[in-house]
């Protein structure tokens, strides 16, 4: 799979965190996403009554990443027929997007299982009802992802004409590298994966669309 390049730009963090910044409309990367396999569902209920061809309503995700030497930003855009903003009722689910990175060696970290006990992953999880404060998560394999106590990820988002526009950003330096987050250094490279949830399709948790393979994110020096 082709690398994704995170270009260095000279712009203020505040401007890059704006999902309406015209920069985000310049060439983007297409990420193809697919239903999470039922075989990976730890819930016999989900395995028994859900069907793989109805999971993963979002098939295409466009993304772009840049950094300004201090912070790194990820922009996402995808089609969603309606904005599922918050959990107003028990049968209502919010939309969402996330990126996933290995905390250790990429070739020992299965993306389809969100890592393993010894090779965990970290993810940035955005949902409209998180008030543009995405959660940082750590997972040690399927069914184990937990929000970390603190998250230094910021975001801005808007839904317009059937499309979500979301940008998430964080300082390149991590607050707890290795444990909960990763240091992202200019000149470096890290594996990256993605997931999208379409709330109106009842998607939440492991019922989602995801990128089946790691891509390499190359961070320009």
């Amino acid at each position, binding site marked *: 799979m082709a690398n994704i390049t995170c270009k260095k730009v000279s712009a203020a963090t505040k401007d890059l965190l704006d999902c309406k910044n015209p920069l985000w409309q310049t060439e983007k990367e297409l990420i193809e996403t697919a239903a999470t*396999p*039922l*075989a*990976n*569902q*730890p*819930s*016999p*209920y*989900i*395995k*028994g*009554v*859900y*069907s*793989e061809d109805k999971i993963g309503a979002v098939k295409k995700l466009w993304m772009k990443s840049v950094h300004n030497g201090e912070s790194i930003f990820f922009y996402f855009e995808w089609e969603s027929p309606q904005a599922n903003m918050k*959990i*107003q*009722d*028990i*049968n209502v689910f919010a939309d969402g997007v996330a990126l996933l990175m290995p905390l250790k060696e990429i070739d020992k970290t299965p993306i389809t*299982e969100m890592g393993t*006990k010894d090779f965990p992953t970290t993810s940035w999880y955005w949902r409209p009802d998180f008030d543009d404060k995405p959660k940082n998560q750590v997972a*040690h*394999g*399927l*069914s*184990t992802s*937990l*929000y970390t106590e603190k998250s230094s990820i910021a975001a801005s988002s808007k839904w317009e004409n059937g499309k979500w526009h979301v940008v998430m950003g964080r300082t390149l330096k991590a607050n707890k590298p290795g444990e909960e987050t990763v240091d992202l250094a200019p000149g470096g490279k890290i594996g990256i994966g993605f997931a999208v949830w379409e709330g109106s399709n009842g998607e*939440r*948790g*492991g019922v989602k669309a995801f990128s089946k393979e790691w891509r390499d994110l190359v961070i320009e020096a």
Partner: protein
Amino acid sequence: MAVEEKVLTDREKELAKTFEATKDMLRKSDHQVGMVMDLNKCIGCQLCSMACKTLWTSFEGREYMWWNKVNTMPGKGSPKDWEKMGGGYKVLFEGKVMEPVQGKHPTRKEFGDLWKFNWNEVVNSKAGDVHLQAKNQEDDSVPDWSMNWDEDQGAGTYPNSFYFYLPRICNHCSYPACVDACPRNAIYKRETDGAVVIDQDRCKGYRFCLEACPYKVIYFNFVTDKSMKCIFCYPRLEQNVANACARQCTARVRWVGFVDKPESIIYKLVKVWKVALPLHSEFGTNPNVFYIPPLAPSRLDDSGKIDPTKPRIPRDYLRYLFGPEVDKSLEVMQTELDKVRKGGKSELMDILIAREWKKMFDIFDKDPAIMERKPAKAGIYTRPGIKE
């Protein structure tokens, strides 16, 4: 349905095994507590519901929840029409193979939202100008359902109309659909007593459990973004104090105790006398809450005389609720009742009358007033089967 045969990879087979083993562990318990409720005695006073509410569900997003509720039967219950919402299992081959059944999420209004009242308006206006009105918290709409909304409506026509009360809590099932449903392994049976609880640190509010529980007794907390349910008052059980709903019951309706210990009254009513039955056992989850079915009076015939050949509550309706075993249960109770009426003795009737209140609670007969009330200890408990 996801049954198209797919060739599984070795890793997928390995995962399937691990998942199964984990669920087996989460379902396992060394002992099982349970409750028997006598529907002949319940007067629908809702003291049990209030005891539970004041103890567990009065704040932080729990205000609209009723972990204990009392419905009028026949009725739509709460959530409205829950019996038709699916979930649970289809039991194939004599209870051996269980296939999960797709369930539906109840809505907040089907449970009955929290009501806001216009107290200020009433107090600050001239007498008679404004009347007290309730509005749903969610969207200010006028409530059209709530817990026990169809109170005392019942069925049948005068003089043969009838109704009875059905108090409901989580059944702390032996094969809980909620445990199976949770993709995060956040729901488990406690090892010591088999109470089914939701780990609030692991729950992320995905609500698969609300879909899968056929009794629809799980609630979603909109404030904390987590699912919550009856915890069988386990912090009280740990100190040998019976559940708040059971102690508060004004009519001595509820027994608490071990389902698996022959000396317990629960065991006697369920396994020896076989008069206490689970509700909708066809849902396949093996409940540990059991009911003594109502032995209602007979019908009156056209001339107004008692017709002892016809029960007031149609037997088919009771079979629908409690299965075919209800016939035997009612027969046994009638026989024992007749014995006592003729001046004889009956162990069963002695149990059901419950002269000695404290005896209803097995070993959980300690007075909560003398219970240790230390602030809860902070601590992390790792249930075997949950990997870090």
